[in-house]
């Protein structure tokens, strides 16, 4: 393959992975194979090394078996975000806190928990309407699923974006008092007063 054609394939792969073409983000392996050829994994690896320089990476999520054609490929951040990045990205601290609490409870209970119990914990720190509204938003975004019996489950997005072992590990390391990590930039949050 010539260098020119490889770089064209690299651009195609970047466009396919970065632009959302389906209801959900990400591209299936067979779609990449169709556009990039049977050696699509080489293109993806090359793209991955390019993206890593920008703090991004290509994440492969397998279904049941380890088959690349059936797997789904996403571009995600390669490093953890800072609190200040969150606000820049349009998230409020309260919203992420609700997401963190709900997903931690679900991860600690094997991916399933009654909504009532999750809300009970959230209500100790937030008004009910706020907790419910952020939980609904998390459901809409695909982080959480809700069954007809009001049971919450880990959503597809949480399975892609969250490292569950890391989440539980860092939650276990939580300290009761508010500690700021060295070198972390945070701006004064007006929502802090609510906690």
């Amino acid at each position, binding site marked *: 393959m010539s260098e020119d054609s490889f770089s064209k394939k690299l651009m195609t792969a970047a466009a396919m992975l*970065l*632009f*959302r073409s389906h209801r959900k*983000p*990400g591209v299936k392996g067979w779609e990449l194979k169709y556009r990039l050829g049977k050696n699509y994994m080489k293109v993806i690896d090359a793209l991955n090394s390019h993206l890593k320089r920008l703090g991004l*990476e290509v994440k492969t999520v397998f279904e049941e078996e380890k088959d690349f054609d059936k797997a789904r490929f*996403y571009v*995600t*951040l*390669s490093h*953890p*975000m*800072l*609190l200040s990045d*969150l606000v820049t*990205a349009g998230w409020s*601290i309260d919203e*992420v*806190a609700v*997401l*963190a609490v709900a997903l*931690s*409870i679900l*991860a*600690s*209970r*094997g*991916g399933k928990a*009654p909504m009532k119990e999750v809300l009970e*914990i959230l209500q*100790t720190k937030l008004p009910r309407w706020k907790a419910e509204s952020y939980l609904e938003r998390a459901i809409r975004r695909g982080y959480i699923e809700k*069954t007809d*019996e009001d*049971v919450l489950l880990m959503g597809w997005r949480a399975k*892609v*974006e*969250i*490292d*569950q*072992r*890391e989440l*539980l*590990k*860092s*939650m*276990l*390391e*939580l*300290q*009761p*008092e*508010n*500690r*700021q*990590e060295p070198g972390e930039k*945070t701006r004064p949050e007006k*929502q*802090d007063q*609510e*906690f």
Partner: protein
Amino acid sequence: MSEPKKVKLTREELEKIIKICESVEKRGLDPFTVNVKELLSTLRKALEENQELDHYVLDAETMYKIAAIIALQHKWLRDSAQALFVDAQLIGTKLLAADKKSIVRAFLKAWRPIISLEQVTFQRLKQGIDYFLGLPPRSGERVWGWKISDREVELLKAKLAAEEDVDEKIRMLHQELLREYESRGEIDYWDFIRRGGFEESFERAYLLSFLITEGFVDVKRNPLKNEIKLIPRREKAERKRPSSLVIVMGGEAR
């Protein structure tokens, strides 16, 4: 009397076991809260006491539900092992004790959001326009399009001319009706449309139907005399209760 009551009691017990199992399964509760050993011994007792076919079905269902709970316990253990055997209670306590920022900071360590763009680019827009312009016209339905052939233009002109011609004929028929009404009064429908051959009569009846529908002509029908009279108007009349009238031409029936 005590025998059926006992049967009913064991049946209720089994139904209760089924409900417990279903509740654990549906609500995602800890499957180890169910004492499987105790449930199995109750089931064995019930099976020994009631050896009817009907009861066996319920026993089998209970057995299936208990098996599902055992499968859930297996999954629970596997998930706990994957989650480093973290106690859900401990996580709950930690979450309650920590402040919002610490929770978010801990969450960020495990969170790698998906990056995806939804904005349209100039290139994508151009692709879209090119695609649209390249689309073939839909057969039989699309008259207007980006490229209209000369033949389509000719057909369109002929169609418009035909429509103008019909409008003129209707206008003339209206004038004729008004003139006849002024000289003779109410006009008999059949006398009015019967001019020339069948084709001309048919055309007059067809054009007249437009005038009637539009409200320029009133129709008075006398079923006893089998008469249909026409009363033309200079101005369009508002139809308060419009109704339809079927008139058959070219046959015995009128």
